[in-house]
């Protein structure tokens, strides 16, 4: 009696596939499409991130007031619910659209890409993405931006760069906001600067206050310089 050997692998064995699949592959793919579109239209795309309540929307209003005669700017703003922030920004006379994420704690490239057709990009020099207020998840999602700017309000405490390192590592600029409150708070600009630079030695840092106006000129000059550089690129 002969036993016929099966050519199939024995049952119960496990077959493995070694892969190298980036979980954010789909996001990064869409982010690249956005980057290319922005390069074609020569629109500067700036992603504004921070904790909730650090003054992103107020900064958008201030920036719109200062720059509206110099360049055309527009904003898209992400929140879990409501249209409030977009309404506030529209009061300054610039185009602002709300992305309601419905519970998602960050913006993804796909959401930005879906909203882009609503803007006449060829006429817009500077487009801001006001991200969901959160220093954690938004750090991982590339939105195709040219620059990532993180607000760090004095009211949050000066220990944030080491607590949320990914955000500060991936940012180009840190704005220490609400600087008018410094006399009343146990916040050390020196300590926050030291920690932030330990995480990211290339990080640019400005101290601003949308209330007193401190640093807003320097911030607007930075933006105008980047907008011009993009036009010439």
């Amino acid at each position: 009696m002969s036993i016929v050997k099966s050519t199939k692998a024995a049952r119960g064995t496990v077959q493995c596939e070694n892969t190298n699949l980036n979980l954010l592959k789909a996001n990064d793919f869409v982010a690249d499409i956005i980057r290319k579109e922005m390069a074609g239209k020569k629109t500067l795309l700036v992603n504004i991130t921070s904790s909730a309540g650090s003054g992103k929307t107020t900064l958008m209003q201030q920036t719109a007031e200062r720059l509206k005669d110099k360049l055309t700017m527009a904003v898209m703003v992400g929140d879990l619910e409501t249209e409030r922030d977009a309404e506030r920004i529209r009061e300054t006379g610039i185009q602002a659209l709300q992305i309601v994420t419905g519970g998602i704690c960050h913006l993804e490239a796909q959401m930005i890409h879906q909203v882009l057709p609503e803007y006449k990009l060829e006429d817009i020099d500077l487009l801001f993405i006001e991200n969901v207020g959160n220093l954690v998840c938004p750090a991982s999602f590339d939105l195709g931006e040219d620059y990532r700017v993180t607000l760090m309000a004095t009211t949050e405490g000066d220990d944030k760069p080491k607590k949320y390192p990914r955000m500060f590592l991936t940012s180009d600029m840190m704005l220490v906001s609400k600087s008018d409150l410094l006399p009343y708070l146990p916040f050390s600009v020196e300590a926050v600067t030291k920690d932030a630079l330990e995480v990211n030695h290339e990080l640019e840092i400005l101290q601003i206050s949308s209330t007193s106006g401190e640093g807003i000129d320097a911030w607007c000059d930075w933006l105008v310089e980047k907008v011009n550089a993009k036009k010439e690129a």
Partner: protein
Amino acid sequence: MHETSIVNSIFRTLEQEFDAEKLHSMKGIYVKVGILSNIEPRLLMNAYEAFHLSNPNYHNTKLHIEMVDLKIQCESCDYITDVKNYRFLCDKCKKPSKNVIQGEEMLIHKVEFDD
């Protein structure tokens, strides 16, 4: 919340890569998660369990999570440093560096299928 999107991306990524029949026999998913990815392994596991409730197809698939430490490679002297306390400084020449070579990843590095 973030972990739920990550679990969805895991399956979205796999569904793009493999056909439905093959995925049906999927036994294990091995992910490598860097310390900088802001993913908390326990929460990711919870989100994974929750995903099963609404997607019984993948009931027999186990998730294995490997956390990966943070390393930078110095641009000046090539030395590789284990980053401690998020001080991005070369241990050897003390120069700052952002050249992260490990610790940012969110990867599916192995998938197991039942034969």
